[in-house]
C-alpha cells in the first residue's frame, strides 16, 4: 500500500528527515515511537503534504501512485488520513457541516453523487455511536472550546466517517484518560480491515496494549534506527530510549 524509500525532508532549511524507509501493507498496523523532536510529526506532515515541509530526496508510492506529486486534498481523496497531534479550531463551521463537505468532496473525486441529508445523518449517527459522541456535540463549531481529549476523539470520529485506506494517528493518545483511550482504541480497532492500514505514532507503550501493532519502529534523529514486533514497544517501555541511541552509535 505505502512504500517510503529514502525520504528526506527539511523545514526552514533544517534537515529533519534523513532517509526514511518504510513499507506498509494493507491490513497492517505500524507503530512509530521515538523521543520528542525526532521527526515523527514531520513524517506525518510530509505524507499528508503540508507545504512548509520541503521534500529534498527520496520517494513515496501510495497504491501505485507517486504520493509526493499530489496536493494535500488529492492525497485525502486517495484515502490518506491524518489525525492531527494538534487539531485546529474552525470557528462557525459545525463538525457535521464540515464532514458533509469533506465527504462530498471525496465522492465528487470518485465521480459519485452528493450524499443526501438523510443518508449522511444515518452514517453520522452510526459513527457517533461507535465513538460515544453526542449528536449535539457535532452541531458545535469544529473543535471550538473542545477539551484536548474531545478534540482527539473527534479526529477518530472523522476518520470513521471518511473511511480512509491509510490512517496516520499522530499522538492521538496523548491527553486521553483511560476511558477515552479505550473508546478511541475501540474505534480504531473496529475500523480495521484487510483493506486498510494504520500508522500509529505514539510516545507511550500504553496505547499499544489496546491497538496491537504488527510492527514497531523507532524513529530517532530523522532515521528509523530499529524495527521489530510488538515486543519492541515493551522493551522500550522498560529500558527507555538510551540503549537504542547507543545502538544508533551515540
Amino acid at each position, binding site marked *: 500500500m505505502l512504500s517510503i524509500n529514502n525520504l528526506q525532508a527539511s523545514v526552514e532549511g533544517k534537515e529533519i528527515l534523513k532517509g526514511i524507509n518504510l513499507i506498509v501493507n494493507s491490513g497492517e498496523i505500524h507503530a512509530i515511537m521515538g523521543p520528542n523532536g525526532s521527526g515523527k510529526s514531520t513524517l506525518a506532515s510530509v505524507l*499528508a*503534504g*503540508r*507545504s*512548509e515541509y*520541503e521534500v529534498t530526496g527520496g520517494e513515496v508510492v501510495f497504491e501505485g501512485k507517486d504520493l509526493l506529486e499530489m*496536493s*494535500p*486534498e488529492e*492525497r*485525502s*481523496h486517495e484515502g490518506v*488520513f*491524518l489525525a*492531527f497531534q494538534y*487539531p*485546529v479550531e*474552525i*470557528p*462557525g*463551521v*459545525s463538525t457535521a*457541516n*464540515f*464532514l458533509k*463537505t*469533506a*465527504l462530498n*468532496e*471525496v465522492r465528487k*473525486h470518485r465521480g459519485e453523487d452528493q450524499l443526501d441529508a438523510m443518508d449522511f445523518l444515518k452514517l453520522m449517527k452510526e459513527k457517533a455511536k461507535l465513538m460515544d459522541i453526542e449528536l449535539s456535540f457535532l452541531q458545535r*463549531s469544529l473543535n471550538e472550546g473542545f477539551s484536548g481529549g474531545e478534540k482527539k476523539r473527534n479526529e477518530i470520529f*472523522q476518520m470513521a466517517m*471518511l473511511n480512509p485506506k491509510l490512517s496516520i494517528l499522530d499522538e492521538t493518545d496523548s491527553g486521553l484518560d483511560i476511558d477515552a483511550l479505550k473508546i478511541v482504541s475501540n474505534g480504531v480497532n473496529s475500523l480495521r480491515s484487510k483493506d486498510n492500514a494504520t500508522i500509529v505514532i505514539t510516545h507511550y507503550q500504553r496505547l499499544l496494549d489496546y491497538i496491537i501493532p504488527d510492527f514497531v519502529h523507532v524513529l530517532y534523529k530523522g532515521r528509523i534506527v530499529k524495527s521489530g514486533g510488538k515486543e519492541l514497544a515493551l522493551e522500550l517501555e522498560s529500558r527507555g530510549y538510551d540503549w537504542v541511541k547507543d545502538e544508533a552509535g551515540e
Partner: protein
Amino acid sequence: METGMDILDEVVSRDYQYGFVSDIEQEITPKGLSEDIVRLISNKKNEPEWMLEWRLKAYRHWLTMREPKWSNVHYPAIDFNDISYYAAPKVKTDAPLSLDDIDPEIRKTFDKLGISLIEQQRLSGIAVDAVFDSVSVATTFKAKLAEKGIIFCSMSEAVREHPELVKKYIGSVVPVSDNFYSALNSAVFSDGSFCYIPKGVRCPMELSTYFRINAKDTGQFERTLIVADEGSYVSYLEGCTAPMRDENQLHAAVVEIVAHKDAEVKYSTVQNWYPGDKNGVGGIFNFVTKRGICIGDNSKISWTQVETGSAITWKYPSVILKGDNSIGEFYSVAVTNNYQQADTGTKMMHIGKNTKSRIVSKGISAGKSQNSYRGLVKINKTATNARNFSQCDSLLIGDKCGAHTFPYLEVSNSNSMVEHEATTSKIGEDILFYCNQRGIPTEEAIALIVNGYCKEVMNQLPMEFAVEAQRLLSVSLEGSVG
C-alpha cells in the same frame, strides 16, 4: 521552497465579471462643477424651480465644506473638477421611458448582469428600477403596484409627478449640510428611486433598484427616498456594478428612509462596484450616506448590507429611533480583498422610550486590504429603557490584511442596557491545511468558513438575493489564497 505563507501570498486574481463597458450613445456634461452645471442637470430633468433652488443651496453650502478625513481610508486627492456630473443614454424624448423604449444595448447590459427586466417582470415578482449612469431607465411592475397606491418610480419622475411628497421628505433625514458628500449629492444628484407605501399597505413584492455606472470619468450620485406611511411594510433591495477602468470613479449616493407609526422598512444592499485590480489600480470610491428615521411609534428599520466591491467604501447606514418602542437593525458583511479599503458601520440614535437596536457586523479581510468597523450607539436622556446589542466580528484571511473596530458609545441615562461583543478570527495556513487534509480544497474551505461566519447576516436577505450574495462572496474571495 513554497511555504504555506507563500501560498497565502499568491494572489491569483479572478476577473471582475461585471467589468464590461456597454457601447451606448451617451450624453455627458463637460467635466467640472459650477452653478451652471447644477442648472443644466436640473434643466435636463425638467425640474420645477424649487428643486433647482434646493440644489443651488446645497451647491453653495458644499463649496464651504471640506472632505472628511477622519475615516481609516487612504486615497489620492479627488479632483472634483475632473468629473462629469451627469451622463445619460441618449433618447429621443425626455418623457419617462417604457420598457420598449430602452436602448437594446442597455437591455443587453442588464441581461449580462442577470437582471433581464422582462424576465424579472415575468418570473421573480421583484419590481426593478434600473439606474444606468445617471438616469433611471425602467421601472417594472409599476401598474401592479399602483393598484395598491404604491408609488415606485425614478426620482426624476417623482420630482415632477409627486412634488408634494418629495418636497416634504427630501433632505428630512439627511440634511443637505449633513456632510461633504451628502451636500455634493444634493447639488448634483441625477436620479435614483423613489418609493412611497401608503397607510396600511403591505408591499406585495420586493422592490429593487439596480445601479450601473457605465460612462467614463463620470460620478454617480443617486438619491433614494423611501417613505413608509403608518402601518405599512416594504422590503427594498439595491444592487450595483460598474465596468473595470484604470481610473477611480466616484459614487456618492444618499438614501433616506422614513418609517411612520407601526411601519417597517427592510433595506438590503448587495454592493459590488468594481473594486480595482489586484494591484489596487482603479475601482470605485464609494462614499455613501444612508440614514433612516423611525419617526412614529413601534416602527422598524432594518439595514442589511453585503459589501464586496469598491476600492474604498465609506458608509454608515444609520437609524434615528425617534418613535417610542421603535427598532433599528444593522446587519453587515463587508469583504475586502487585494488593496480594497472599507470603513463602514452604523449609527443608532436612541431618542424614544423603549427603543431597541441590534448591530451585527461581520468584516472579512483578505489580501492586503484594510477593513474597519465604525459604530456609534447614542442613547439620549429621553430614551428610557433603551436597549442595544452589538456584535462585531472580524475574520482575517492571511496575514497581510488588517481589521479594526471603532465602537463608540454615548449613554446618557442609567436605565438603558448596552451590550457589545467582538471577536477576531483568522483563517491561517494551519486551518486551510486541516481542511485540505480532509479533502476540502482551499477555495471551498474558505467559502465554507466564510458562509458559516456570515450566516446570521445572510439569513436576513430575501431568499433569491441571499443566493446571489453568497456566490458573490465566494467570487470576491477567490484568489485570496493560492
